[in-house]
Structure formats: structure tokens, C-alpha cells
């Protein structure tokens, strides 16, 4: 019995080491806005006179650079400003943000997305999604995502009625914003991880393996991780228990997840034994 528990614990911990969910503290701090515009206040302007702002466009500084996108045209509206990441750093933007400093500037996403399309001969990564664009309500986005996934099974959908969205609140220790994600927008842990990364600026989860489940192996590596100050995602399931994200197949997770919380690894240690018990009883 004890042996079984130890093995299970062992196995859970592998997940976390195999797929590091960590987040260094410094990455939480966002770097200043990278548009590189002037910020000095011209006090004359501020006396509310209706004069034109000084200079023909000097005030605004360089526009957010960006290719026309879509690889269809090569127009660049203005030269890059300083502070933007060089191209070479953008290649694995989607996969692992740990080495990147600071936040993901939205304009950069767009630029990076289009640059990658222009230059890479390999299959381009999915276009980085800019928050708020295109301006489609979440409800509609979700319906579309569902329908895309089920496009082969439309005629069978009568009874499936999977309903609309699966919005869950996401909070991250230390971040004042509460956010919401619609779990039905994603079809794998990796996609969810990418979305959370964008939302919380530098949170990253590694690969989950082909089935997206916990792979059970290296206990000590996991313990190191949980003991560090890095962050792991956890969720509250239907029974009200807090579990480590990734313990069950994706579909089961979507059904049972009520809330997400990204917490420090050291706090998540307490979850591990309970999570193990539960996993055991499921299997």
C-alpha cells in the first residue's frame, strides 16, 4: 500500500519535472512599453490650448512596426524601434518563453507572426493571437472552435449538445487581474498552456507528452521544482479538490475543471499526495 503510494507520488512528480511549469519571479515584471515613443510632457501643450501637437508626427514616435502580415505583402510601415526583440529570438516564441525577458508586447506578436511566415520555410507556427483582435465575442469564438472540431460529426450532434462555453476563472498568485478562459476553445494542454502564457506574460508549461497526461517517473526532479519558487497550474475539480493540471486526459479535465489557479511550486507540494490518492481511485 505504502509502496503503491510512493510509486504514485513518484510518478506524479515526474510530470512536473518532465513538463516544467515554472516561472521565474523576475519574469512577472513586465518591461516598459516597447514602442519607444517620447514621453516628455510639453507643458505648453498641457495648458489646454488647441494648438497642434509639436512636430509632424514626432510626438508619437515610431509606429508599432509590423509587416502587413499574412505573407501576402512586404509592406513595413516604419522602421523598428529599439527595444523590440531581434528576429532570431522569436523563433520559438510560442514554445518556451523562459528565456525571453519581460512581457510579450502585442505588437511584437503580430510582427513576429508575420515575419515568421515570410522567412521560415518550415510550417509556420500558429499566428500569435493578439488580445482583443479580431473583435469577436468569446461566445462566438467558442462556437466556431467547437464546430471546427466536430465538422465531421455534425449530423451526430443532436444528442451530444455539448453546450456553449466552459469558462473558468484563472488567477495567478501575485497577479491582480482575474481572468477567464474558455476551456472549450482549446483541445489540448499545450494549447491551454500557450493561452495562459499569453495571459500571464511569462508563464510557461513544457510539453505534456502525446497523450497530455502525467508521465510518471522522476520524483526528485519534481521535488526540486516544487521546492523552488517557480509556478505550477492547479485546478479545482467538480468535487472541490485542488489538483495538479495534467493529471487526467484533456476531455476529462475540461469536464471537471471549475477554476484554475497558478500557484507557486512550493505551495503545490501539498497537493501532490491528495492528487495521487485521487488518481489512484480513478484508475
Amino acid at each position, binding site marked *: 500500500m505504502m509502496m503503491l503510494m510512493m510509486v504514485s507520488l513518484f510518478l506524479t512528480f515526474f510530470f512536473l519535472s518532465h513538463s516544467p511549469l515554472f516561472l521565474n519571479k523576475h519574469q512577472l515584471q513586465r518591461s516598459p512599453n516597447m*514602442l519607444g515613443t517620447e514621453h516628455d*510632457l510639453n507643458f505648453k501643450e498641457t495648458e489646454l490650448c*488647441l494648438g497642434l501637437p509639436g512636430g509632424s508626427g514626432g510626438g*508619437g514616435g515610431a509606429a508599432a512596426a509590423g509587416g*502587413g502580415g499574412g505573407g501576402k505583402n512586404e509592406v513595413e510601415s516604419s522602421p523598428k524601434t529599439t527595444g523590440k526583440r531581434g528576429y532570431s529570438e522569436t523563433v520559438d516564441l510560442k514554445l518556451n518563453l523562459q528565456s525571453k525577458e519581460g512581457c510579450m508586447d502585442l505588437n511584437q506578436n*503580430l510582427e513576429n507572426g508575420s515575419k515568421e511566415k515570410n522567412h521560415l520555410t518550415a510550417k509556420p507556427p500558429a499566428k500569435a493571437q493578439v488580445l482583443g*483582435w479580431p473583435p469577436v465575442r468569446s461566445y462566438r469564438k467558442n462556437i466556431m472552435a467547437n464546430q471546427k472540431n466536430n465538422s465531421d460529426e455534425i449530423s451526430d450532434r443532436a444528442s451530444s449538445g455539448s453546450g456553449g462555453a466552459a*469558462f473558468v476563472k484563472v488567477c495567478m498568485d501575485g497577479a491582480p*487581474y482575474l481572468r477567464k478562459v474558455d476551456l472549450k476553445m482549446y483541445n489540448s494542454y499545450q494549447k491551454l498552456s500557450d493561452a495562459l502564457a499569453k495571459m500571464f506574460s511569462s508563464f510557461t508549461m513544457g510539453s505534456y507528452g502525446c497523450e497530455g497526461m502525467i508521465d510518471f517517473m522522476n520524483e526528485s526532479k519534481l521535488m526540486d521544482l516544487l521546492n523552488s519558487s517557480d509556478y505550477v497550474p492547479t485546478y479545482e475539480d467538480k468535487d472541490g479538490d485542488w489538483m495538479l493540471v495534467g493529471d487526467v486526459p484533456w476531455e476529462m479535465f475540461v469536464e471537471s475543471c471549475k477554476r484554475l489557479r497558478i500557484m507557486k511550486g512550493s505551495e503545490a507540494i501539498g497537493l501532490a499526495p491528495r492528487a495521487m490518492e485521487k488518481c489512484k481511485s480513478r484508475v
Partner: protein
Amino acid sequence: MQKKTAYSFPDEILEHVFSFIQSGKDRNAASVVCKSWYEIERWCRRKIFVGNCYAVSPTMVIRRFPDIRSIELKGKPHFADFNLVPDGWGGYVLPWISEMAGAYPWLEEIRLKRMVVTDESLELVAKSFTNLQVLVLFSCEGFSTDGLAAIAASCKNLRELDLRDSEVDDLSGHWLNHFPDTYTSLVSLNISCLGSDDVSFSALERLVGRCPNLRRLLLNREVPLDKIANLLSRAPQLIEFGTGTYAAELRSDVYSNLAEAFCNCKELKCLSGFWDAVPAYLPVIYSVCSRLTSLNLSYAPIQNPDLTKLVSQCPSLQRMLVLDYIEDSGLEVLASSCKDLQELRVFPSDPFGEEPNVSLTEKGLVAVSSGCPKLQSVLYFCRQMSNAALVTIAQNCPNFTRFRLCLLDPKIADYRTLQPLDVGFGAIVEHCKDLRRLSLSGLLTDRVFEYIGMHAKKLEMLSVAFAGESDLALHHVLSGCESLRKLEIMNCPFGDKALLANAAKLETMRSLWMSSCSVSLGACKMLGQKMPRLNIEVMDEKGPPDSRAESDPVDKLYIYRSVAGPRFDMPPFVWTMDEDFASELS
């Protein structure tokens, strides 16, 4: 004693005259003619619209208007629809309900948009307003089916319950059972947003069956196709109907029942719903098509030729909402069949896809603009546009009141010339003199804003993203657009100068939203100090403003005029820059 001249009427006469003035704007104008008109008007005003719930306090409203029967309130800024406003920002309706509960016991209509409505609020509504007839919760959130149960149980005179696009927590499916058996007054019911298990179908059937005045019924997705015939047969007087999921195995009995049920709805003019629609069941609505004035297929994954065939049978269409599956070819058919078309909305089926999945381009919109002379309102998502097309569209449709173009790649240029789309949008504002609402997208320089400032004199709402090069752009808009009420901007290189130079303009507008721009904290503070009748709200995750440099840009900025002063229900990530701000922090 007040001397009455030959030109003054007794109050009762004036009051009677005012009762013919329904428009809030006109009433507002009448109320400032003189003090006696102000008094008379405020006593007999029955309907009030508050475009920003924080622009005024409930106490102030109640003090001025003692006998309101109908109120409409709006809360969060429009960009909240696209997840740009963090949770907890505000827009709570409870303070309003609490105060109105005592002051307006005869309140009949409550219409809320983008507000946070809790079960507690709904329970208070149910308890306080026994004469409630209309409850519209448009894009609201924060409540559950428990709150709805309270409304159902208590509001005997309820005619209209509309939960359009709201987020409702599903707790139990049986709130519909709370409508008493004696309740028969329902005229309009929109539960299309409810999730699974929220609706007890048998309760719905009984409700529909006993309400002979039911004219509008919009079901939620969970209602299966084979139940619709039964419902419709109990309500053949319906004018507007929204199906649930429109997919099922093809069965001849279901098919024929459905066809017959639709056929018997002789007054049906508006259809919507059609989630997951399969082509097999489309023909059942053919008998209704010739009468349809409004058709919403924007949740239906139907493609051509079925989609086009359906559209071609609806010559009376005035309002069409559809996915881009309709493609240019379908829009051409629409243009030739639907000469009464006034409003068109084309939504993207794959908004985040890399490559186009459908053949929908600018050509479809040009076709509709050419074929439909009454076209006034457009919302169009597509992947390519040209200046030439926009100029043609503008020339074809000088009557546009609303024009919203969303290019999926927000900075894409004219695909033919690789130029910015300035000239195209310039043509729109130049030709469409009645344009009230405009959303821009595509590659745009300061020039387009120059055109807008010059021509868009009736423009009330402008949405801008990823556009412009400098503050000059913002300055053009703020100084030129005389009728501007709402301006929302995301990801544009606009900084302090235009904002500060046009600070006075901001008091003539309802609100300004700027996110991911370059407005500095210092400028916000300055505005806060100089403009006491503006609330300058800064939203930032990074931490309180006092911890950062004056020149740091703020993440999100929301400025709105208010006579109520700064609000007190702000979450930790929102700060108001007011005159006390600087001193509070030192």
C-alpha cells in the same frame, strides 16, 4: 405669486405637451429652456437612459426624476466584449437597484447592458418591483438561474425577459417552473445564452402553451430539434423565433412535423438560432422564407450551395447575419435577391486560421453595396480589402449609418496596391454624411484620421486598432469630429500630446478608452488634476502608479465624464487620477 404672461401655459398643459416628447435628447433640451420647464419636465419624465452608470449616481437621478417607470443602464466599456476589461472592473447594478427599490416602486422596465447583475440584485428586483414588465439583461454577468427563479416567481406582470448574450451560471434547470400556473403574460422570452440543463423543457412547453401573447421566443442551444415542432404548434402567433440546435438525424416524421409547424406560423418574420445546422433540415423553413425580414445564420455552419439557396428564397430580408461561408458568390445572390436589405453582418468562421478557409473577399461586400440600395449598416469580417473597393462601396451607399470593417490581419494593406487603406476609408466618411458609427482596420496612417476629422461630422462612435503613426491622428479626430461620443482605441502609437491638447473635448464625450497605447502616467495625472468633471481611470497590473515613473505608459486608460465624481467600487488594479491623487500618495 408668479405672474403668468399670455405666453405661458398652465403646468398641466405643458406636462401634456411633454408627454408627446419621448426622445431623451429632446426632453433634455426642453428641460434647459427655463426653470419652470425644468421642473415640469422632471416631474413627468418616465423614461431615462444612462449611457454610463458611473456618469451619475442613483441618488442624483432619483432626486431629479421622482417618478421613473423605465430605466436603461450601461456599464462596462464596449471593449469588454473582447476581453480587454479585466474581471472585477465594475459595472455593478446593485447600488442602483437598492436605491430605486425605495424610490420607484412602480418601475416597469429595467434594461441593462454590460453590467454585473448578482442573484441578490435580481432577488431585490423581484421583491421591490411588483409591476415589472420588462427585464433585459444584455451582455450581463454575475447571476445564476436562482436569480431568474426569483424573477419568475414574483413578477406577475412580466412581459419581456431577455437574457441576450449574458453569462449565466447554471445551478439548476428548473427556474422556469417558478412561473406560476396563473402566469400568462409573457410576450418575449430570450434564453438563447443559457447553457446545458438550464431549461426544463416541459416547463417551457407549458409556459409557451399558456401565454397567448407570446410573440418572441429565442431558445437555447440545448433544445433539440425534434422538440421544436411541438413548441411552435403551441405558439403559431410567433413573430420571432430562435431555434435550438438545428441538427439531428434525418427522420421523415420529425421533418414533416417541423415543416408543418413552421408553415402554420403565419406571422413569423424573424428566425435565428440554427446552431450546428445541417442542410437536411433547412427546407422546412422554406414556407416562411418569403416573409422573413430578419435571418440570423451566424451560428450555422451551413455552406454553399445550401446557404445560397436559402438566401435566394428570402426576398423580403432586411437584416441578414451570416458566417463567411456565404462567400462572395452567396453575397452576389443576396445582392440580387434581397433589395430591401438594410443590415448585413458577416462573421468569420475561422478567425484565427492562418489561411483563408472560404472565398470571401471585398468583392462580396461590393456586390451587396451595389445591389442593395437601402443598405445602411454593415459589419464585415474578411481577409483582404482594397481602396478601390472601399471607394466603390462608399459611392454605392451614401446612406450608411454604421460601417464596421474588420480585417482579420489588422494591419494588412490594400492587397492590390500595397498602399494603406486611408483613401478607402476616407471615401467612406466623405460620401456617407450620416455615418454614426465606424470601425477601422487594415494598414492606416495618420491620413485617414485627417479625413475622418474633416468629414465625419455626424460620427458618434469610432473604434480604432493598430492604426495611425502619431498623435496628429488622434488630434484630427478629437478636434474634428463634432458629434463624437465614444472613442475606443487599442494598440495605437498615440501618446500625451493630442490628449492633453484636446482635454476639453473629452467632457463633451461619453467616454474614451485607450489600451496598449503610449499615454504616460504623468499625462493621466495632469488630466485628472485639470479636469475635475472627468474620471481618469488607469488600469494596470504592474502595481500602483506611485511606484512608477511619470513617463511610464499606462496599460489601459478609461476616461469618462461624470457628475458623480470618482467611483468607490474600483478593484485593486484600477486607479482614479483625480486632484487628490497626487496628495494622497505623498
